[in-house]
């Protein structure tokens, strides 16, 4: 449900950029969403369409680049890919792992005119 708040935040950023960069329509927005962030992409797409309505991003296409979650296993001394925050090392089943990547929620760029 917080995807609505996140989309509102995205639209605010977009509107601020519109003044700085002088554009009047947004064609697409690209996000980077980490596997471990609290964002459900489906909910994000749904919320975005609703929140973007009647703004300069109305009708814009949302792209979500999924960023895989990576962690370091101190037992194997290796970087491993994980699916959940509490996953054990796929090689040696050690946990907890030190999470290195996968929390991000970033607005990468947007196509405007």
């Amino acid at each position: 449900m917080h995807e609505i708040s996140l989309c509102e935040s995205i639209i605010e950023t977009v509107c601020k950029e519109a003044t700085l960069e002088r554009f009047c329509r947004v064609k697409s927005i690209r996000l980077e969403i980490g596997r471990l962030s609290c964002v459900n992409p489906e909910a994000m797409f749904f919320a975005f369409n609703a929140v973007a309505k009647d703004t300069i991003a109305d009708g814009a296409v949302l792209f979500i680049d999924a960023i895989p979650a990576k962690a370091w296993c101190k037992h194997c001394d290796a970087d491993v890919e994980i699916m959940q925050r509490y996953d054990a090392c796929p090689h040696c089943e050690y946990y907890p792992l030190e999470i290195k990547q996968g929390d991000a929620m970033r607005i990468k760029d947007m196509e405007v005119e």
Partner: protein
Amino acid sequence: MCTVCGCGENNKHSHKHAHDHDYSQGVAGVHVAGLTQTRLVSIEQDILAKNNGYADANRGYFSRHGILTLNLVSSPGAGKTTLLTKTIQALNGAFPMSVIEGDQQTANDAERIRATGVKAVQINTGKGCHLDAHMIGHAMDDLKLKDKSLLFIENVGNLVCPAAFDLGEAHKVVILSTPEGEDKPLKYPDMFHAADLMILNKIDLLPYLDFDVQACINHARRVNPAIKVLQLSASTGHGMDHWLHWIKASRELSLIGRQITAAA
């Protein structure tokens, strides 16, 4: 990497279409700054940047005034408000306290807090599922917080959304009540990862439940190896002394090395 379309080594998306990098093919046929052209604007910004900016401002204020702020999070009905009222009564005015209450609707909880004699502001989020740092900033204005005081924020009962929103607090404290089941930390890992302290509440009900305390703690530590755990029953008072010690110790730590600027 091409900074215009993002293609290149770090590129995670693929273009199905071929395209070139000619900037003079817009409707105007020429590239003139300010005229309509499709172009790519690089943002590279955290989606929560605005909230985090407000949170930093709140944190700065708390730091300057020696205020310890605790953000209490849990699912609905875990006993946040009972814990708060009992805590306020037990601290018995040891230092100034105030409370920000977050709920979708009603001022019931703020009224329960005010009945203890402590100042409380109710934030009704309407359809919103969490408090954000901007709301907290406004509530702080209303509360006129005292230097070296303790501020409790009782977040909206929800184990999902409040995890992502920094309010500027010193610690998130997650409250899990025994009837909820021991696997909550695995079901809602983001919240238990974000919290510094887990309070296992309603332990007086353990004889009537099939709840494995050690398994619950193991689950929480699996998500967050550094999390501290306290077991108590806010309604019977059992274990409350550990929680009160934790609050007092956290407050002392937050004051060490701080030069407190007197409120204007």
